[in-house]
């Protein structure tokens, strides 16, 4: 490992060594408290009764842990349905982003049609537009599609189509495809492979890591998104988890709302723990070398 701010030698000797271990312990304790503490409080708090949660000082471990709040949340908020909806939207988002964004990035990187750079520029320019600015005209578009006059309200297409318009994905994928040697493509062409065949048999197998990153980001994006699904998926049958919990939060005991929030967070936490390496790598490559 190359040296950083403080040299290795300084940390190994006498006072430096003592200071290092003190700071390391302190950092680990403080970070665990700051980042896991609230989650612990959330999970155990929802195990407490309504009386116990209002008690002062609060109990660190529930005196009489009960799963009542969790079962209430699951049944009263119809979390199974909400969870299925969110999962379904996330799966669709992955499929459509992978199909259309990889195809577009492949065309921009390898087929390079006329005005390809103009199109790429127009796509990247959308990164500069704040999402909040577009929310009203996007909504107006979704309730009455131009020319065909169809409403996408409560239809999953209202979530999937805007997600394909993701310039960041196209940029990431294009940059990855750019690094694939041109010779490979030329060789495939000599063998008579069509562009689609080249994409499918040569480019995609080489791009597994980046496709994984794009997929994980799509899933977490759908799971975390709030305002857009709240606007275009208003019915109780089509809501996502976050939107459904918010819609119920007014008339539901707070412990039940928190229990539902815990359940809603479990899938993304599991995804994170499994794929943390890919997620962190994707995050830093996506932003640093841009």
């Amino acid at each position, binding site marked *: *490992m*190359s*040296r*950083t*701010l*403080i*040299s290795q030698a300084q940390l190994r000797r006498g006072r430096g060594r003592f200071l290092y271990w003190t700071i*390391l312990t302190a950092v*680990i304790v403080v*970070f665990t408290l700051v*980042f*896991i503490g*609230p989650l612990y*409080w*959330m999970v155990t708090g929802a195990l407490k009764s309504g009386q116990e949660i209002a008690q*002062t*000082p*609060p109990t660190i471990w529930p005196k009489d842990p009960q799963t009542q709040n969790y079962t209430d949340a699951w049944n009263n908020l119809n979390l199974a349905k909400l969870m299925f909806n969110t999962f379904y939207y996330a799966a669709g988002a992955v499929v459509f982003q992978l199909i259309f*964004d990889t*195809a*577009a990035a492949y*065309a*921009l990187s390898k*087929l*390079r*049609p006329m005005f390809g750079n103009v*199109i790429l520029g*127009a796509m990247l320019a*959308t990164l500069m*537009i*704040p999402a909040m*600015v*577009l*929310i*009203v*005209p*996007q909504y*107006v*578009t979704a309730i009455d599609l131009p020319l065909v006059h169809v409403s996408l309200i409560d239809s999953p297409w209202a979530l999937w*189509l805007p997600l394909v*318009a993701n310039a960041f994905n196209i940029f990431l994928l294009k940059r990855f495809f750019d690094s694939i040697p041109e010779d490979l493509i030329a060789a495939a062409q000599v063998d008579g492979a069509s*562009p689609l065949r080249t994409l499918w048999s040569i480019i995609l197998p080489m791009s597994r890591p980046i496709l994984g990153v794009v997929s994980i980001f799509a899933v*977490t994006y759908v799971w975390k998104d*709030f305002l857009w699904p709240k606007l275009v998926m208003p019915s109780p049958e089509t809501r996502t988890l*976050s939107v459904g919990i*918010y819609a119920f939060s007014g008339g539901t005991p*707070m412990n039940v*709302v*928190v229990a539902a*929030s815990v359940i*809603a*967070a479990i899938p*993304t936490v599991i*995804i*994170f723990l499994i794929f*943390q390496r890919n997620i*962190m790598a994707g995050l*830093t490559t996506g*932003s*640093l070398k841009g």
Partner: protein
Amino acid sequence: MATMTSVPETKRTPRVYAVKVQTRRGRKLRDNLTGYAFLIGAIFCFALFSWFPMIRGIVMSFQHTKRGVTSWVGFDNYTRIVQDPSFWTAWKNTFYFTVLALILGYLVPFVVAILLNELRHGKGYLRILVYLPVMLPPASALFLFKYYAYDPSDAGLFNAILKFLHLPTSEWMQSPTMTMPAMVLASTWMNMGGAVLIYLASLQNIPGELYEAAELDGAGIFRRIWNVTIPQTRLILALLAMLQIVATMQVFIEPLILANGAGTQDSATSVAYLIYQHGFFQNDLNGAAALGVIMLLVLAAFSAVYVRLTTKQD
């Protein structure tokens, strides 16, 4: 092609040449068509949900729709939006949130990244910890803060800690002065992980010799941070500053969930929340579009200043 056979000997050469040109052009056309066949899905989605809405938002802000009839009204929507008493409150709150988030949410990740970069143990664990909140659905995390952490009674998590430390407790979201700091605190906790990881990656790219040389010149830790770390990460620092300003100026879900939208004495109303209010509760989509255009201009001004600063330095 059938005519080729009847072509007289003398004219053959130019004819063949012409056919060749045509097929080359034909292939080029075909290649372009293939290219666009691959692009069409993405272009369609961008056109429908990015390019067209951008223009439509601007057009809508100069129109008014009443009982299905749309007419041009000039700057009427803008004057109405600006005269709304919440307009200036929302901008004041949004700027306040942005500045507080810059102090807390911008400085803390950098310090945390510098600290983590010096540790030789437990780095993987600490990185997971910092990024974990980013993976939570914001609605989930905010309900945790709203009901448990910011409970204004002594049963709330933060008040219990403050009481344990013999510090004065707070009313949190029920106090107009604490509303914003509380929202920034929750927002920073939820979002700082990404910035920490990006800083960490950029810190790892700093050549060790620079620190070595600075140390030989007798520079202490803080001097080394000031003279080596910051200049070496300047670009990423500037980039993240701009990204954060653009993101925090659009703060929406924090006021919506933590403060039920407006908050105590309008202390939480943000510009984004006002867009939502006008568009989806007051049935004033045109006014909301006008407010969106104003927000776009303000954020564009920020971007322009940023571009100016970075090009000046280089």
